[in-house]
Structure formats: structure tokens, C-alpha cells
């Protein structure tokens, strides 16, 4: 079995199994803990709508806070959007999703994908440096923070190398790219990458718990 | 080929090798014009889209000199519209193309009489002359 066959076959299967099982384990196990019982009279009885609204509004610029967090906020937007474009609209990726999900969608020209991937890497490296040097972030960071960011950067770098056929044979580069993505999959449920799923219940809670007090979260 | 052309496959763009090739030829030609070394390009080593080789031929056109030699099958040496740029097509005895080159030089090596062949020619001429009526004295200085 070649490295590529391993990456496309058993490694992919195993990493997806860990990704899915681990994510549900963590998500279900967290949400099913005892819930607080709200007994006080709500000012607004729109907890559901307020919760859903917060999921959206917490992605918007943060009013008066914005001027103090502009760099992090906009670099955050930029790299997340660029990452999603690179991941979701690169034709070979769509073929991959099609093989897993059973359906696909139209892609974007490779030039755009190359640009978004490069932007993502540049911002992530900048954020990595910031994390290691900014007093607040350095103090509150743990190994997970560094591992997670590196595990996102590496697939982007290997993806660009595979696309551009730089640094090795295509099948080796593709295999390394796949393996790096799989490493990220495996790490996902255990580290902070899980926020991709957890941010929705977390924001929802903020929206509904402040919402019942009549406060826009 | 005509049957293939009947299939509705159009090629929208070229492999991208045509322009670099023409640039390479230009550089080579300038070098030769300034008294430098010639260059030979093996067209068999370049990936070509269907029809691209024809396109190159058309772009280079035909110049003044056209030579045909017959050695292990015919070979056509065609000067292009750019003097010093030659299109060489080797065929086998079955008229099938076996190799194609573009040579950028004053005169393709292949057209020059070869020393070996000339030496052999001399001995053949000697033979002819000696085995004739013997009246012609031959002084070989």
C-alpha cells in the first residue's frame, strides 16, 4: 500500500470515525449535563429567537468594543472566510466532499483558491506570532492553542505544495496533504477546534439567557 | 486523421508550449546571428495539444531553402520564413515520421557532406579512375 493509498483509505476512514465519534461524544456529553432551571419571571419570552439571533449577531462588529479589538476581529473574519472558501470551493475538495456526502457544488477558479489559501496562511502565521508574543494571549494560551493553529496551517501549506507540485512528487504531496488534514480531523474533537461546533450552543445560550432579562446579547 | 476530426472535440486553448517555444527560437537565433552556437530542439520532447504542431509549422512558415535527403528513408529539411531556423522531419522507409527537430543554425549539420562519406567517395572515385582505360595518370600529391 502506498502512502497515498493509506491516506485516502484507512487513514481517512479512521480519522473521520474519530472526528465524528469524538465530536458527538464531547458535544452530547457537555449538553446533557444538568441544566439550570430558570424560575424567575422572564422580561422577554423570546428565549429561542434571542438565542438564534445571538448566533448571528456575535459575528458582527462589536459596537463600542470594536476599536480595541479591530485587528483580531477582522483578521478573524478574513482567515475564517478565506479558509472556508479554500476548503469548500476548490474543485478537488468538492470531489472529496462528494465522495463522502454524495453531493457536490460548483467550485471557484484555482487562482482564487490559491489566493485565499495564501491569505489564510499569512494571517494564521501572524496570529500565531501574536499568540506567542502578546502578553494577554501568551499568558492564557496552552498547548492546545498552538497545536490547533499549527494543525490548521499545515494542511494549507501542504495543499498549496500539492497544488503547485513543489517539493516532491504529486502523490507524495497529496498524501502528506491528506494526512495533515486527517491529523487535524483527529485533533478536532479533543482541542479547541471544537469551537466550530460549540460556538453555536454557546452563543445561543448567551442570547437566550440575556434575552430573557431583556438584554440584547 | 479525417475520421478523428469528425469527432466534435474542439480544443479551446493550447498547451501553453507554443509561445515559450517561439521565444526559445528567437533567443537561439539571436545567438547564432551574433556568431554563437546553434541549437537543436526535439519536438518529440514537448507535450503538444492536438493540432499544435501544425500551428507551429504554420507560424514558422516556409523559407527559401528546401532540401530532401534520402538516408534510411526520406528526411525533409525546410528552412522556415526566418532564415537560420530549420524544420527537420525524419521519416522511415515507410514514410512514417520518426523524429522532428527545429534546428537554429546557419546550415544543418545533416546537409553538410560528412568527412567519412567524402573519404569513401575519394576511394570510390579512385577505383573508378583506376579501373577505367588507365590513360589518365594520377598524381596524388
Amino acid at each position, binding site marked *: 500500500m502506498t502512502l*497515498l*493509498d493509506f491516506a*485516502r*483509505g484507512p487513514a*481517512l*476512514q479512521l480519522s*473521520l*470515525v474519530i472526528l465524528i*465519534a*469524538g465530536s*458527538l*461524544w*464531547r458535544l*452530547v456529553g457537555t449538553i*446533557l*449535563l444538568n441544566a439550570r432551571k430558570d424560575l424567575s419571571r422572564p422580561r422577554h419570552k423570546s428565549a429561542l429567537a434571542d438565542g438564534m439571533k445571538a448566533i448571528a449577531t456575535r459575528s458582527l462588529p462589536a459596537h463600542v468594543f470594536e476599536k480595541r479589538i479591530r485587528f483580531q476581529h477582522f483578521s478573524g473574519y478574513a482567515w475564517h472566510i478565506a479558509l472556508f472558501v479554500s476548503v469548500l470551493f476548490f474543485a*478537488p*475538495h468538492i*470531489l*472529496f466532499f*462528494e*465522495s*463522502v456526502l454524495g453531493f457536490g457544488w460548483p467550485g*471557484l477558479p*484555482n487562482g482564487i*483558491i490559491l489566493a485565499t489559501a495564501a491569505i489564510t496562511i499569512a494571517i494564521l502565521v501572524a496570529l500565531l506570532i501574536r499568540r506567542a508574543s502578546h502578553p494577554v494571549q501568551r499568558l492564557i494560551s496552552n498547548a492546545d492553542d498552538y497545536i490547533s493553529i499549527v494543525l490548521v496551517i499545515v494542511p494549507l501549506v501542504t495543499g498549496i505544495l500539492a497544488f503547485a*507540485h513543489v517539493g516532491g*512528487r*504529486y*502523490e507524495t504531496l*497529496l498524501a502528506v496533504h491528506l494526512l495533515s488534514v486527517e491529523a487535524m480531523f483527529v485533533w478536532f474533537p479533543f482541542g479547541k477546534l471544537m469551537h466550530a461546533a460549540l460556538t453555536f450552543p454557546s452563543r445561543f445560550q448567551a442570547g437566550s439567557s440575556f434575552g430573557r432579562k431583556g438584554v440584547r446579547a | 486523421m479525417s475520421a478523428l476530426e469528425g469527432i*466534435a*472535440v*474542439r*480544443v*479551446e*486553448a*493550447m*498547451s501553453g*508550449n507554443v509561445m515559450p517555444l517561439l521565444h526559445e527560437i528567437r533567443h537561439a537565433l539571436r545567438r547564432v546571428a551574433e556568431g554563437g552556437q546553434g541549437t537543436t530542439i*526535439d519536438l*518529440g*520532447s*514537448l*507535450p*503538444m*495539444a*492536438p493540432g499544435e504542431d501544425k500551428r507551429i509549422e504554420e507560424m514558422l512558415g516556409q523559407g527559401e531553402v528546401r532540401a530532401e535527403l534520402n*538516408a534510411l528513408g526520406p528526411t525533409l529539411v525546410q528552412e522556415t520564413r526566418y532564415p537560420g531556423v530549420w524544420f527537420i522531419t525524419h521519416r*522511415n*522507409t*515507410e514514410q*512514417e*515520421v*520518426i*523524429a522532428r*527537430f527545429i534546428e537554429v543554425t546557419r546550415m544543418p549539420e545533416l546537409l553538410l557532406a*560528412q*568527412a*567519412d562519406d567524402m573519404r569513401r567517395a575519394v576511394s570510390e572515385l579512385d577505383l573508378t579512375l583506376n579501373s577505367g582505360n588507365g590513360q589518365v595518370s594520377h598524381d596524388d600529391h
Partner: protein
Amino acid sequence: MRKDQSLGEYLFAQGVSRRGFLKFCSATASLMALPPSMVGRVAAALESARRPSVIWLSFQECTGCTESLTRSHAPTVESLIFDAISLDYHHTLQAAAGFAAEEAREAAMQENSGKYLLVVDGSIPMGNPAYSTFAGISNLDMLKETAANAAAIIAVGTCAAFGGIPHANPNPTGAVSVSDIIKDKPIINVSGCPPIPVVITGVLAHFLTFGSIPDLDELGRPKAFFGQNIHDRCYRRPFYERGQFAKTFDDEGARLGWCLYELGCKGPTTYNACATLKWNEGTSFPIGSGHGCIGCSEPDFWDKGSFYRPISAGLWGSREALLGAAAAGAAIGIGSALAARSRKKKAAAEEAKSS
């Protein structure tokens, strides 16, 4: 051609002019994928090259490789190359059969011990030896015996090089490649199903010209022909770069000659010279005809999923496994939450008791 004649002497004796010889050499250099500047060296080497003895063994094969070779550009430079070797044994092509044929082989082996070239097509069954025999000799025995005193071995075709189709899952005959058995001889793998004929003759020409084997890649294939993948040399590559892909074999993209990546083309992971040398006298190659590369020059190409499955798609069996993983994950999650709840409850009960 007498065996003690050099190739140059032979050609000149045939009345070939020096010009003709030069033409032959430039065509040969082109064949070996050598740069035109190497023609002088090729000429010098060929002029004095001696005629080697070649023994060709065919094992578990379909004769496609031999067909590919013999039906290629008939009488051409390749045929001259073949004139320049002494093909002493090839059971498909030779007139002799049975014990007579084997005698010819044994004679050639004795006479040219340590100097002859062994060409093999087909894989070798390691299961029951009776799966494939000649004159009662098993393929394995014949290969070992013939390889023992060969100068080098050329494994022609994917079967000889990597096991090929007989080796495909579930490999009922236990087929293996030449290099799985012979470890102490230089082996040149000329893979492909079938290999490009000029690649076979190119390798022979190289041996003839330089008396040595060419530079090989890590799979034992000559780099001159297998050094680059189909994708890198494909004329449809610009479409890939631009993200223009044919989605079906009859859509607009297919008609416009767009990249076949999405239709499962294995060009990016396949190393061969098809995109430059092409087939049928340089007419076309599979991608040129609108079908993706199936990767026939790569090991186990039969076992890498459908020819029409894109390379970036995963190679794995079941979506059910993922559903199972989801169920298992949710179950562990529920279990851990219940355990945590009961722990909270117990702590609360203890606290109530103590206070």
C-alpha cells in the same frame, strides 16, 4: 549482422551513409529522450557498440506487451535496434518450440554467460507452480535459472514490473513481479499496460549505446521516460490550473477538451511518457482522446478504486461506518454525562447529610 561486428561496421556495410547514420543517431537520441546535444556521444557509442544477446521470457501475461512492440511503427529505427540485438529466445516470436526452443535458450545462456540481456513480460505465480510452465519448467525456476547469468533484466509491462493484473486483489495465483524474486541483478522496470513501444526500444537502445542501464526512479523505472507524471506534461494542464473540468464525458467541458480530473483521471499520480511520446505513431494518447489516464504504469492500479473515481475522493468503503461512529460517540457522550450527573447528585446528597 555478425556478432563480432560493431553496429557502425554493420550499418556501413549495409550501405548506410554517414549522413544516414547521423539521422539514425539523432532519432535514437530522441527515442531515449536524450537532449539533441547528446547525438555526438550516441553516434560515437553506437558506432563501436557490440551486438548483445537477448533472451525474452513470457510468464503470466496477455502478450499485449509483445503486441505493443511488434505492431509499433514497423520497420523503423526500432527495427534497426532489433537488428542490432540478437534475440535468441522469444517463445511467441520464435519458430522453434518445446525442447528445441529451450535448447536455444540454454545455448544462448552458455555462450553469452554474464553478458546477455533478459527481458521478461508477465508476472510469476507463487501459488501452484503448475499455473504457468514451459516444457515442464515452472516460471519461477525458469526465471531464477535465466536470471542467474544475465547482465541485466528488463521487466516489460506492469505485470513483470509490479505484478499487474494477475496481482490484483484477490490475486488467485499469488502473482509477483520480477523484482520480488530476483534481488541480485540490475532490473529495469518498463511498466505500462502495455508499455509505450518506443520506451521498450529506448531502453534497449540505451543498453546498446552505453552498455549500462539508465538512471532509474525509486520504482526501478528509467527516469528519462518515467521521470515526470502525465499531469505535468499534459496539454490539458492549463484547464486544471484554471479549474475548468469536464463533469461528464458528453458535456460542454468534455467537448472543449477540459481537464478530466473530475472524471477520475490518474494523470497526477501516474509516471509515464504518454503525454509526450504518445501512441499510434505519436497520434494521440488516452487523455487526447477524451478519457482520463487510468494509471496503468503504476503499481496496483487495478486496486485503487474505480478508474472514474477522482484522486481527491476518499478510497473507503462505507458511510455506514461513519453513522456507527456517530452513534458510538453520542452513546459515550450520554454515558459520560450520566456519570457526571450522578456524581453531582451524590455530592449534593453528601453535603445535605453533613450540613
